[in-house]
């Protein structure tokens, strides 16, 4: 399986944003807490100040009362006034005691209390002085109270600011972080969708794998993955393979066949082989594969049954063809043997007939009448003709066999040679030769020599009735891939309706008492030309001469006649 699209880690900015928000909230909380503590402390101090003030007022009242009782005693001598003065004096001392405790943390108030102690203890109290000190102490407390109120207000103001600023920035951070998170998760979702889509794609490639299967196995030879349409065709299934070892999933002989290749793949060596399975033929490719850091093996199988069948068919056809070739070769060899036999055994009796007739003629010439001598001549002529037929047939047969030699052949020099060889037949004849410039061709020189020799010898033969024969050899116009040679004579010609018969074996258009011949010459010409990949045709009118055409490929290719 291909590795998934890499998931991006949560963006660092999201983390930073979240941490910053939390820090801000902690700061806000801490500040609010501190502010609450400060407020509570302040309230306590306010109460404390009020207590101090209240005691100061009481003290002031007590001292005024003591003084006024004393004055009343002094004026009236009323003892009751003295007692009341004592009572107020005790209350004043008690208040002083409390004030001393309450203002223990304030050195200035303690000093003032010391002064009050002294003033109160004096026999004649200086009430104004006492009042002045008390007022100083009251002022001091009022100042302290104002100070504390101011502090508290400042602290509250700051806390409000912290909360407002912190709240706004925390809100902004949370909003930004949320946006980032949304974007991140959106991206993730898209990536996961893509991942799922691609996984589905890969899975469908494997499960739809045509004509075969794809398998993955681990080092225990346990199938990790098995997919492909070919599984069902041989009665296997994904469920029957995945998670099972080869020995659990497959027949023993198949395991024996595939195990070495599987082991090789695990050792890093790929193998390809063919194996029959479930009545079909499979090409199996086993190769090493590293998946998820684990060395595994991958098997790809392809159903090659059709190809195998086709190959078998080709093999069968080849064998058949080979058999035919063997038969044809043997037939050809038989033909060779037959030709040899004809050549040797058939010619010998003909030769004997001819030889002994000749000896008979010499020996008994005087004893035989004219008719008997004519009969002997007929026998001699017939045996000669038979010999000629055999020789021509053998030559014709040889033209169809054997390899064609390849070479540059000068049609001009072949023509000159052929004319030279015809000299003996030209005795007493008047023949005008018109030989044009002739091209070179590619072909078998010996065979093409026979072509020209046969065509020219025909021309000489069939112009015999002409007092003045004209034979022309030239090159005719033709398609660019052909070289067309013609041999034209002013001889007896022939009827065009027989033109095609001319090139057949033993086909003759004239009686042998008019023109001797075996009817093989033009058949040999056609066979040779066909073997060179060319063609032959003729054009003639009765008593108007004949023209024979030979077209040879400009680049000769061998063709079977």
């Amino acid at each position, binding site marked *: 399986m291909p590795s998934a699209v890499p998931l991006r880690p949560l963006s660092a900015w999201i983390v930073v944003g979240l941490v910053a928000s939390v820090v801000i909230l902690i700061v806000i909380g801490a500040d609010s807490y501190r502010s609450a503590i400060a407020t509570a402390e302040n309230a306590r101090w306010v109460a404390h100040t009020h207590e101090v003030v209240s005691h100061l007022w009481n003290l002031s009242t007590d001292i005024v009362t003591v003084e006024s009782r004393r004055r009343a005693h002094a004026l009236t001598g009323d003892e009751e006034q003295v007692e009341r003065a004592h009572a107020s004096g005790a209350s004043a001392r008690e208040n002083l005691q409390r004030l001393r405790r309450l203002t223990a943390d304030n050195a200035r108030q303690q000093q003032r209390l010391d002064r009050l102690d002294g003033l109160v203890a004096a026999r004649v109290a200086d009430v104004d002085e006492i009042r002045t000190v008390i007022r100083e102490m009251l002022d001091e407390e009022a100042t302290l109270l104002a100070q504390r109120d101011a502090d508290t207000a400042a602290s509250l103001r700051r806390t409000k600011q912290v909360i407002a600023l912190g709240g706004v920035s925390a809100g902004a951070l949370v909003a930004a972080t949320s946006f980032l998170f949304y974007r991140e998760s959106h991206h993730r979702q898209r990536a996961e969708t893509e991942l799922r889509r691609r996984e589905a794609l890969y899975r469908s490639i494997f499960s739809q794998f045509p004509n075969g299967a794809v398998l993955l196995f681990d080092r225990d030879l346990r199938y990790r993955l098995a997919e492909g349409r070919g599984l069902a065709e041989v009665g296997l299934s994904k469920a029957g393979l995945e998670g099972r070892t080869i020995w659990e999933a497959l027949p023993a002989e198949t395991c024996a066949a595939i195990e070495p290749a599987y082991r090789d793949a695990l050792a890093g060596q790929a193998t390809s082989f063919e194996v029959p399975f479930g009545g079909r033929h499979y090409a199996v490719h086993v190769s090493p594969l590293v998946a998820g850091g684990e060395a595994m093996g991958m098997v790809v199988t392809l159903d090659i049954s059709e190809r195998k069948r086709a190959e078998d068919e080709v093999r069968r056809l080849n064998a058949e063809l080979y058999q035919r070739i063997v038969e044809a070769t043997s037939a050809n060899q038989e033909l060779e043997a037959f030709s*040899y036999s004809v050549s040797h055994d058939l*010619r010998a009796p003909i*030769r004997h007939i*001819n030889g*002994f007739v000749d000896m008979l003629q010499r020996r008994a010439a005087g004893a035989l009448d004219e008719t008997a001598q004519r009969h002997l001549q007929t026998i*001699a002529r017939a045996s000669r003709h038979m010999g000629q037929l055999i020789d021509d047939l053998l030559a014709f047969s040889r033209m169809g066999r054997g390899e064609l030699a390849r070479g540059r052949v000068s049609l001009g020099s072949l023509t000159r040679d052929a004319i030279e060889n015809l000299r003996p037949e030209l005795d007493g004849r008047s023949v005008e030769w018109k030989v044009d410039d002739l091209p070179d061709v590619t072909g078998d020189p010996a065979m093409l020599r026979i072509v020209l020799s046969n065509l020219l010898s025909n021309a000489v033969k069939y112009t015999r009735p002409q007092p003045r024969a004209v034979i022309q050899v030239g090159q005719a116009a033709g398609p660019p891939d052909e070289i067309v040679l013609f041999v034209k004579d002013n001889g007896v010609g022939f009827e065009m309706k027989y033109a095609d018969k001319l090139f057949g074996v033993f086909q003759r258009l004239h009686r042998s008492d008019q023109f001797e011949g075996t009817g093989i010459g033009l058949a040999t010409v056609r066979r040779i030309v066909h073997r060179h990949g060319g063609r032959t045709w003729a054009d003639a009118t009765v008593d108007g001469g004949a023209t024979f055409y030979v077209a040879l490929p400009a680049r000769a290719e061998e063709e079977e006649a």
Partner: protein
Amino acid sequence: MTDLKRILLAEDNEHDVELTLSALSEYRLANEVVVTRDGAEALDYLYRRGAFRLREEGNPVVVLLDLKMPKVDGLEVLRQIKQDGALRQIPVVMLTSSREENDLVESYRLGVNAYVVKPVEFSRFVQAVRELGVFWAVINEAPPGSVRKGP
């Protein structure tokens, strides 16, 4: 008359023997012809063994060999003659019905001195044999060891 020289003719067909002798006789060479009827006899003659062990010494001036003979064919006789140091100088002429190219090629490969296809027409056959006889038996100077008969 010039020295007459012995000709060895190996030919299995009696008609061919008669025709050949007839042709040679026209030039008075017939009496110098030894006829063997197969390749084995021809070799016996050349090696003076079997029926020929008592024959006089000396090699023929020319051997006329038919190609196709019983027992040992003409090509085999040719091969043995040309492989034998004592015989290889004897001129050998293949005188045969066969026009087969294979035979022609094989004969020359084995060292034949001439290869003649017997013509069907007797007059031409006579001419061919005459020319052979005259050339090899009369004109050609035979190698040492050939039989010469005085006049």
